[in-house]
């Protein structure tokens, strides 16, 4: 198989804040691809949310022409991958497009769970990995210790690990040389039938879907008629190009190369990540391995605060889905919240990002219900139901089997917090599978636990019980039977569907009490008495009461006070716009998240 000796395709693996985006910025500057004038921080993170949170959500590529010290000219394709457990599938597809990776580890922090998960993914793809120790200019950096850590936990030889400071640019030229010298060139036959892997796609309002791909075999030309393997749908290549760093049109791309094309594709669903592109006239015999349908794992209800915004929310969701095939939604009606949507997400971060984008980019005012996992329920008629909304749980009398999804989780934690993490995992119904010392002071705990327990307040609790030192990663394993019940919350004797949660029976009592108390504190005192109850079936297990308001009156209102007083009342009314009225009672937005935040006070 011919090798494309002048090409290197690589990704950067790093934990959040370990310096991935900064290193990418330095590489672009060092190779003069981005000049002083256009320089900005986190060049590759295009979305505001990506920059602010310091995370990458969408994959990016950049083609970097590089003249090595040996005088030869190379093309380096940097494929920037998302770095979060929610996007594992996307990460795996981006990695499949590369031959090697730079592993960036913060020399003052050491290896984190997320890093490890992605390194394993890269190793699964037989990647060559160059360990890079970043932030060596910091006083707290301990290069030798972190090298030992990498060697012990990944088994990666760190003799030639590169010490750098992405911030100052120290060591970056050596990184470029190492990419050329140590990473393998891609191989593939430019004459063979076309076989290209889609590793990202997004919707552009002018050009339709833009598809990022890596050619495994064959050659693609502008004007070609291509076919997508999974659907058989055919498109013309209307535009072909590379990002370097801005879009640059090119007439043809061959095996080993990375680029994009537009073909008047209307829907992201027609160019899904992981799918294979081939020629309509001369198709490849097989697709690139690893294509799968991504499944939403976490669900929540999204409702417009003002019910007249329903159509606006629908339009916003449609637009977002154009750019994110992993996110799903369907109309749903709640007695409490009116018309809205049940939305599915890859994970909690994905959910937060979508909610944030709806509020920011589409100015939607939203009420979100507490997230839920998908439960599997078998009823007496032998049917299996997938329940993503606790309010839709079949009548308990009809349920014969009840299953919930489990994950296997790895937590990396300094040894002084091991006890805290174990307590937390026990409380979250976890069972310990393994405990290993990564180094003398860092421990890897492996647990299996119900995913629902993670969806509740797990991340926050983990952070606070380890002072932020723990990092974690998880993967889904299976569905396991569980003793679950639906916990209803009643406001003035009416069950509020949007507040129902599914919980383990042993925890129902204490959770019911805490949610009722949380609701009491969240719901402001109002004109009328508010009685909050938690119930399992017909049995009330907790009760709280909010006494009605005592006094809210303006003493004087004469001719000169009328406008001011009217405006004041108008303003108060506006301030309550985010409240949902249920009969007499106004429920603030936070009330719908009470189940999530019971641990906060």
């Amino acid at each position: 198989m011919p090798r494309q000796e002048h090409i290197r395709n690589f990704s950067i693996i790093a934990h959040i804040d370990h310096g991935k985006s900064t290193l990418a910025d330095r590489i672009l500057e060092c190779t003069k691809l981005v000049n002083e004038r256009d320089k900005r921080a986190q060049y590759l993170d295009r979305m505001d949310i990506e920059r602010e949170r310091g995370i990458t959500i969408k994959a990016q590529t950049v083609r970097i022409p590089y003249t090595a010290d040996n005088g030869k000219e190379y093309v380096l394709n940097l494929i920037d991958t998302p770095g979060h457990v929610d996007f594992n599938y996307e990460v795996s597809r981006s990695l499949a497009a590369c031959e090697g990776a730079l592993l960036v580890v913060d020399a003052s922090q050491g290896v984190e769970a997320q890093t490890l998960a992605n390194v394993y993914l890269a190793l699964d793809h037989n990647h060559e990995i160059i360990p890079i120790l970043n932030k060596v200019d910091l006083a707290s950096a301990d290069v030798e210790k972190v090298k030992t850590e990498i060697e012990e936990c990944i088994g990666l030889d760190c003799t030639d690990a590169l010490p750098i400071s992405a911030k100052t640019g120290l060591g970056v030229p050596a990184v470029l040389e190492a990419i050329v010298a140590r990473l393998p060139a891609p191989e593939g036959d430019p004459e063979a039938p076309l076989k290209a892997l889609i590793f990202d796609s997004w919707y552009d309002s002018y050009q339709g879907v833009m598809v990022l791909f890596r050619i495994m075999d064959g050659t693609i030309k502008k004007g070609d008629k291509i076919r997508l393997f999974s659907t058989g749908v055919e498109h013309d290549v209307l535009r072909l190009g590379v990002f370097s760093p801005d879009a640059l049109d090119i007439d043809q791309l061959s095996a080993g190369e990375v680029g994009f094309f537009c073909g008047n594709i209307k829907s992201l669903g027609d160019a899904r990540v992981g799918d294979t592109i081939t020629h309509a006239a001369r198709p490849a015999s097989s697709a690139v391995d690893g294509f799968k349908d991504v499944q939403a794992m976490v669900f929540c209800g999204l409702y417009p605060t003002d019910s007249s915004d329903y159509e606006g929310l629908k339009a916003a969701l449609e637009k977002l889905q154009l750019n994110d095939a992993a996110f799903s939604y369907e109309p749903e009606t709640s007695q409490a919240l009116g018309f809205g949507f049940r939305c599915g997400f890859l994970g909690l971060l994905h959910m937060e990002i979508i909610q944030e984008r709806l509020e920011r980019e589409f100015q939607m005012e939203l009420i979100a219900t507490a997230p839920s996992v998908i439960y599997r329920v078998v009823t007496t008629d032998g049917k299996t139901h997938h329940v993503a909304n606790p309010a839709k749980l079949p009548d308990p009398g009809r349920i014969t089997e009840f299953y919930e999804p489990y994950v296997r989780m790895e937590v990396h934690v300094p040894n002084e917090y091991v006890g805290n993490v174990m307590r937390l995992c026990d409380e979250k119904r976890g069972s310990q599978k393994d405990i290993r010392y990564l180094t003398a002071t860092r421990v890897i705990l492996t647990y299996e636990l119900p995913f629902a327990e993670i969806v509740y307040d797990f991340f926050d609790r983990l952070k606070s019980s380890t002072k932020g030192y723990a990092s974690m990663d998880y993967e889904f394993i299976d569905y396991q039977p569980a003793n679950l019940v639906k916990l209803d919350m009643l406001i003035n004797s009416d069950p509020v569907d949007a507040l129902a949660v599914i919980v383990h029976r042993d925890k129902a009592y204490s959770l019911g009490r805490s949610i009722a108390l949380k609701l009491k504190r969240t719901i402001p005192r109002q004109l009328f008495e508010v009685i909050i109850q938690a119930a399992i079936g017909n049995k009330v297990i907790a009760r709280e009461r909010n006494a009605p308001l005592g006094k809210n009156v303006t003493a004087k209102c004469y001719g000169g006070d009328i406008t001011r007083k009217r405006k004041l009342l108008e303003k108060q009314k506006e301030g309550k716009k985010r409240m949902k009225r249920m009969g007499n009672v106004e429920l603030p937005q936070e009330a719908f998240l009470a189940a999530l935040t019971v641990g906060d006070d």
Partner: protein
Amino acid sequence: MLVYIHIPYCRGKCRYCAFSSQPLGRQGAANPHGPLAAYTSTLVAEIALWRQALGPVPVSSIFFGGGTPSLLAPQQVGSILEALHAAFRVASGAEISIEANPESALQPGWLAGVAAAGVNRLSFGVQSFHAEELRLLGRIHTAQQAIQAVEAAQRLPFNSISLDLMWGLPCAEEACPPVAASAGSPSATRAATALVRQAVSRWQTTLATAIALGPQHLSCYGLMLEEGTPLARQAEGNTLALPPDRTLTAQYLHTVHALRRAGFAQYEIANFAKPGHQCQHNLGYWHGEEYMGLGPAAVATVGSVRRTNPADVAAWHKAVVQCSPGKLPQGEEEHLTPATLEQELLMLALRTTQGLPLGPWAQRTGRAFTRQFSTLVDSLQRSGLATRTATHFALTPRGLLLSNAIIEQFFAALPAHSG
């Protein structure tokens, strides 16, 4: 048409008052060429402007408010009233009120003078009969002066005498030492209850003293801390123990009951009158009548236009003298949409114990009130916060105490509009 005249001067500034008034020394008040004389002649000029703009409209009531209107000399009050009589068709027997501070009303000849000038209703700013409370509020009169002033007025032929009183007053520190026990402990709860009792009993004394003086009308206002006032700053600095909600509720409900026993009917959130002595001028505001506003910072609402005069005396003077004939002095203007007028009607009518007249509401809006707001109306009635007769929907005394929260809910249920 109601006529409101604003007097922007005070002898000294009360510590709870946010209104921009100008302090006036004793000499200033007495000087025939001083600010009050200048004020009076500008006001007479302003009356002429309104006459030109509106013609000789009928006037049902005149109200001198402030500031401290009792700083005006009876002759000055007289010339303003003369100008009004000359310009408009003032109804015979029209209610003509003036607000008076006890110390200035006691100046020799003042009460008799204003009575002779045509004033037939007096409203005394008394606030409290407790020396330490008067001090805290920054009032410059004593309880004794208030009593003397009321007694003096009663010997003159005024139709109604009213007293302004204040409940919900904070404790000056020396009167209620901070509770040492930790919050929530039984002893702290006992101490807190004792404080509530003390506060309620102080208010009971003030109210009983007022009733004993035999006025025909009482206005009882809960203290509102206005931003930027010395009292508000003191409260922010935590050197002032503001009474808890339960004290305020107890004081308010006590007011309603005690005054009812004494023969005063509540007719608005803060206003109580013997039969036939309701303040017609103020009722006019709550019934949505039109009103002229004369003097600095005065507000007028005629038709769907609300105009506010410049608050600064000099700016107001300039606006009056530079005003072209047929126009009104330039100030802030607000155009009230039908939807806004609807909101105001609701907001103002629900302040009165008579409540909102259902017939006119239906006529005006084309909707039946109790159907339009059926859920809210039902819940309010069921909770004893409102009552409903064939002709009116009204809040009960307990409802009045929550009127902001209630009106806000009506606002939320009103059809959306751009206000």
